[in-house]
């Protein structure tokens, strides 16, 4: 299911640009916030997965789900949701694998963002 979800939903990106009146500086700022925040979420998720601490993975996964959706990074958002749900359910098996998968999607997302000029 995750694979069918677009890495970057262009319509969300377009709406976002429209909603701020095409202010590219703001968009660039927002994306850079997204990138630095995303890195710390991954660090937190990795630490939680390494410690098999299901509860600790919920919050970074939840926040990543939300901010990635805001920028149209729908596949990343979807996988973050799966991690969040697993964390809430107390599932520890496979958390590590999911975080690694998510990291791959994260890299793909940044590439696509660069491709549409969101990251310069």
């Amino acid at each position: 299911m995750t694979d069918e979800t677009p890495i970057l939903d262009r319509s969300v990106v377009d709406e976002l640009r429209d909603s701020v009146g095409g202010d590219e500086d703001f968009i660039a700022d927002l994306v850079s916030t997204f990138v630095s925040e995303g890195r710390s979420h991954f660090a937190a998720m990795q630490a939680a997965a390494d410690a098999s601490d299901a509860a600790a993975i919920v919050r970074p996964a939840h926040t990543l789900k939300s901010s990635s959706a805001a920028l149209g990074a729908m596949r990343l958002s979807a996988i973050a949701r799966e991690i969040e749900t697993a964390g809430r359910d107390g599932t520890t098996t496979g958390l590590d694998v999911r975080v690694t998968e998510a990291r791959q999607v994260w890299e793909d997302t940044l590439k696509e963002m660069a491709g549409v000029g969101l990251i310069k």
Partner: protein
Amino acid sequence: MTDIALVVDDSAVNRQLLGRHLAGIGIGVREAGDGRAALALLRELDGQVGVVLLDVVMPEMDGYETLEAIKADEELRHVPVIMISGVDELDSVVRCIRLGATDYLPKPFNPTILAARVRASMADKRVHDMELEHAAEQARLLETIERQKEELSRFLSPQVAALVSTPEGEALLAGHRREATALFADLRGFTTFSDQAEPEEVLNLLREYHAAMGALIVEHGGTLEHFAGDGMMVFFNDPVPQPDHVERAVRMAVAMRETFAVLSAKWARLGYELGLGIGIATGYATLGRIGFEGRYDYGMVGTAVIVASRLSSAAEADQILLNPRAHAAVEQLVAVEEVGALTLKGFARPMPTVNVTALNLAAATA
């Protein structure tokens, strides 16, 4: 005043985005990354926050705890809270509405919906603030009215002050006719005294005299129309009906004479010879607001007033003169001596008059 929105979300992306949208519709924004920081900011901004946009999942203090803390705080509970929530979090939204949240905002944010909800909540807050201000204003107004009434009652008779601002009072102020008893009292020898004494002495003596007589007027339920130098006019049976109005006037006159005796003995030692003359007359009169725009008094107008004034002028020191109608009403109560028919200025026929020498003790204690 309350044009600031507080955005509480642990995602910097969301805060930045919301801040941008809100700034776009002219709303100032403050941000907090968790509930604890949000509460601190709310208290620091003291009343300036018109709406809180609150995320549910946050570190330190989550949306539920924050919402509960806001609603439990007397100072903050009226600030509207809009929950920020993803579509998959509708259960938590319902829970938040139960906890007192006013609305929710789905993620991802739609600027139009955001603007509408934030504006509606801020408008609610403003209405609420205006209601509070209005209530405070009303309370201040009532306080002022009470203070003015209190102040007024120091200048007017308490009975007249009580008429002000009641509908019945308005009717009475407009004017009415009824039987009433007027009492005039003034000092014998006052003109000579005031010519000879120092002004301070005159004022001190008057103050003492007014204080002593004033207490008796209040005690007997008289309505003081005026003090003028050494003279005063008091009437009874209005605005508060007093079936025993003549008796009250006579009892008060006797009490005044007794009180005055103590004062005048003291003044005599200082070399001032002063006496008190009192005239009482009962009759029908017109009572109500008398005067002109800018200065009204509650007054009594009628023949009885003129008669009482003339009798007071005619009275020698220590005399309490009654007109026939007043005498008839208290015949059993008083011991009198005939003064004879007095010719009063302005009256064609001489008026048979009596002087009250004492209260009839048997009747007085009955």
